[in-house]
């Protein structure tokens, strides 16, 4: 099993549509970072610009950081602007992806 599967590019393509939008990434160490999505890669690593930590009093550790790279494997959640996401389109694409994967087995 290869980490960062490249077989399905669905969420990679989805994140690409959100480049330039402001998102909040919650990491598996409970740190949450808000920033503008600059780029994403096949491993769902993200680069955020002009970041601000969601709880700055609790997390003063990154005060001198403006832009950062976040490893995909440490992301728990990505909070997205509702207006930028076509949920039905995403749902359809995911359903088709699941059917294709089922058929391929």
């Amino acid at each position: 099993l290869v980490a960062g599967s490249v077989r399905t590019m669905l969420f990679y393509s989805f994140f690409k549509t959100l480049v330039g939008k402001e998102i909040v990434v919650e990491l598996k160490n409970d740190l949450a970072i808000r920033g503008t999505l600059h780029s994403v890669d096949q491993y769902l690593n993200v680069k955020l610009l002009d970041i601000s930590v969601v709880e700055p009093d609790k997390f003063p550790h990154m005060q001198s950081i403006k832009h950062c790279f976040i490893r995909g494997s440490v992301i728990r959640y990505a909070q997205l602007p509702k207006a930028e996401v076509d949920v039905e389109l995403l749902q359809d694409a995911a359903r088709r992806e699941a059917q294709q994967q089922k058929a391929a087995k």
Partner: protein
Amino acid sequence: STSSRTIHVVTCDGRNIIGNLKGFDQKTNIILDECHERVFSPDAPVEQVPLGLYIVRGDNIAIIGEVDEEVDAELDLSAIMAEPLAAVVH
């Protein structure tokens, strides 16, 4: 800033390491020169521990931040007290 950037690495075990990025690869393994660890504590000011030349393995990295040198110079580390970052739990 063209030769090597100052970066701030947050590791999966919750450490903060700052140093000059000398190289990296596809797996985000990185080489950090002249690096130091910033140790945060709720009861004491930030401690900076010099480390030297490090290779940090990519699978142990959570965040790589680009340090804004101007902002970093203005930081009063002796005034910052906070719990250390938690470790990443998969």
